């Protein structure tokens, strides 16, 4: 990122080659449309190019920055930007202040494909209703109360399913990663 902040095009191209497939896939999962996903992908990488100087490695890793950026942009596409800001704002240009900068980059330790299979498998192992609320929240940008309304469930049920699902995912992932 330091090289990119100094407008090193080669470094930028390397970053693109490393992250574009993952980021694009995440965006497609959110927006569902390929042409819109291409637009968002370009927006994100151009923003990385423009805002690289604002990235602070002490606040988090590039992976976290990129996926946060990608998810926010993709959610903005399917829902209004104001709507997201009313809820839980995550600035594009900075990582969550409470984020642990020493956490491992999921792209670092294992081959991406192998790691992805582990995550997919873990998601499949948790109960469907728990997986459902997690996926609606993450890929749809919905709040817990919206999910409750969408699935016609009590809010408490949604909260419980989300907590249990995330807890189980944590256990399953920690067993293999």
């Amino acid at each position, binding site marked *: 990122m330091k090289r990119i902040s100094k407008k090193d095009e080669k470094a930028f191209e390397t970053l*693109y080659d490393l992250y*574009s497939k993952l980021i*694009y896939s995440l965006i497609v999962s959110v927006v569902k449309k390929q042409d819109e996903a291409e637009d968002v992908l*370009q927006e994100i990488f151009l923003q990385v190019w423009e805002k690289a100087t604002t990235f602070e490695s002490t606040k988090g890793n590039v992976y976290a920055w990129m996926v946060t950026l990608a998810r926010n942009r993709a959610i903005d596409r399917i829902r209004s930007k104001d709507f997201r800001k009313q809820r839980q704002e995550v600035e594009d240009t900075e990582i969550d202040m*409470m984020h642990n900068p020493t956490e491992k980059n*999921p792209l670092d330790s294992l081959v991406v494909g192998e790691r992805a299979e582990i995550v*997919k498998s873990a998601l499949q192992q948790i109960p469907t209703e728990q997986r459902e609320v997690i996926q609606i929240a993450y890929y749809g940008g919905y709040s817990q109360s919206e999910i409750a309304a969408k699935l016609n469930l009590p809010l408490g049920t949604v909260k419980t399913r*989300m907590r249990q699902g995330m807890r189980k995912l944590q256990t399953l992932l920690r067993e293999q990663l």
Partner: protein
Amino acid sequence: MITDKERFEELCSAYVLNALEGEELREFQQDLIEANPERRNIYDEMRWVALHLPLASEFVEPPSYVKENILRAIQTQPSPRAENMLGKAAKFFGLIKPQVALAVSLALLVIIVGLSYYTFFLREVVRQRDQQLTALQADLSLQRQQFIALQNELTRKEEFLKILQSPKIDVVIMGGLEISPTGYGKIIWDPERKSAILQISNLPPVPKDKDYQLWVIKGQKPVSAGVFSLTDPEKESFFKIDQLVEADKKVISAFAVTLEPKGGVPQPTGKMYLLGKPS
């Protein structure tokens, strides 16, 4: 402070999925700042899980032109400083797809052609307005000349009127002679002010190098009383004589008009056209 660990986990799992809102969001954010190591660990773990969720997406390779567009867009950004100003535009052009780019290009072409036509149209309007302005200026100049002529005419008429309003005026009629038998002339003068009006009609046009000259004949001696030209021989012409050389009717034996070299001469040399004697 959230006292219940289970509730903390509940809020935490929603927070890392950006699914918290309202009061609960504010409550959790505040709690996170004051979180003990155990709760910080819960948060870190939840976040770690959330950061893995993108890996569960079905992996799709982006089209190669996306990379080309992005690289092209960053290469066209001139400098970091200029980038701030041009960034949005460059980004816009970098983001658009070939079909959209074509449409934008065509739209720009249409705009350019439209602007060119509009420029041509404006130039034509300006040219026409310029012509109209020139014509109006010429017309104004003509009208100003006419106004000055009318003012002069009015002044002259006022002068004539002053002479005619004088309580004592003298009049001499001049008749045409052999060279101009239909010629006619009249002198009206105010003996006190020595101002006179000369009225002429039916005299032939004056050649360029000639003038008509009025003479006052005292006894046998002609004395010049002024020269004049006829602008329109068809019409009656009036001339004002400010200082008549002789205003005493008893002394004046006749008035005469001759055709003389341009500007007049001390003594008559040309043919006599009009002649009249006081009655």
